């Protein structure tokens, strides 16, 4: 997937990954790559500005996790983020259905 299209949907993708539970930046990137079978392979560092923006919008919250060999910044959805995810998901599915019905399924 081209990076511009990916970046345009990064908020939805990050919120979707966090719907499974708290994760740190590296974990989020790894899950994105694994769940997309390697299709979503964006510059890993660009996930942090996206995370910070989502936190500023109160869609996610974060804290430093000192347990473990390395200090990690953990992220989790807020109640507002869960509502945002539900709305974004609904919008995306509607859009995807529309595109699919126009483009059609390859025979």
């Amino acid at each position, binding site marked *: 997937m081209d990076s511009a299209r990916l970046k345009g949907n990064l908020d939805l993708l990050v919120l979707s990954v966090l719907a499974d539970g708290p994760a740190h930046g590296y974990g989020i990137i790894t899950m994105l790559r694994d769940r997309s079978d390697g299709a979503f392979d*964006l510059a*890993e*560092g660009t996930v942090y500005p996206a995370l910070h923006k989502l936190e500023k919008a109160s869609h996610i919250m974060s804290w430093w996790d000192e347990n473990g060999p390395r200090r990690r910044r953990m992220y989790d959805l807020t109640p507002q983020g869960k509502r945002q995810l539900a709305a974004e998901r609904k919008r995306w599915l509607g859009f995807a259905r529309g595109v699919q019905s126009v483009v059609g399924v390859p025979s």
Partner: protein
Amino acid sequence: MTAASPIEGFLDALYDELRDADAAAARRLLAEAESHLRESADALEATGLERLEAERAAVERFGTPGEIVAAARPAVHTRLVGLVAGSVRPLVLLLGAGLVAVGVSGAVAAAMSAAFGSDFVGSMHQTYTAAACGHFLAVQPTATSCTQAAVLETSHDAIALRLLAGGLGLILLGVGWVWTRRGSELGRGYRLSPVVWLTVGFTAFAVAAAGLSVQSTDLATNYGSDGVGFYLSGALVAAFAAVAFAVPLTRRVLPAAEPDRP
């Protein structure tokens, strides 16, 4: 600066790119980047890569410092709005301060008029047309001559209009105060440096004080005390305001004196 570790080198480069960013946000991004890169390099090393190769690959996957900083930067329109908002707030406060100074000069003119007579503030040393005289005599019915009516009217206007400007200035200062107290995100990070707006304020008031002083001196030289108060009231207030701006400006510009060491 070169670093033996690709991760260290990347963090140095990212630090350089973030030099203009908000300090807390930059510190956090650097800490997260380091944690991410070391974890990524560990994972790659576990697949059999040499440590140096693993670090290089981790850095390559992370993206360039420029990419990260560009993604962190607000959208262009947000920056423009922020820049305008960040500049408008100090301008509102400066304009408010200027108008309040005009209002105070009105009060000073009123005090001068009461102490030294209306001529000290209102005498303009002009010849008036019959129509102007008619107007002055109509609005100042207690005057016994056109000149006296003109003096009374000029003096009255000098006080009333300046006090009105002062009231408007107080409203603007109130708007600026609420804007600051509300801590709006708009314009945050684009605020003018206090040195800039203190310099603008000091310069404006110092120039006004100098100009009005010249006018006062010119009048005093040519006509004696009549009309001097019109300009002198403004010159005194402008000089006081210039000093009020100069004191904090000097404190910020000049380095604090080192205490004597024993």
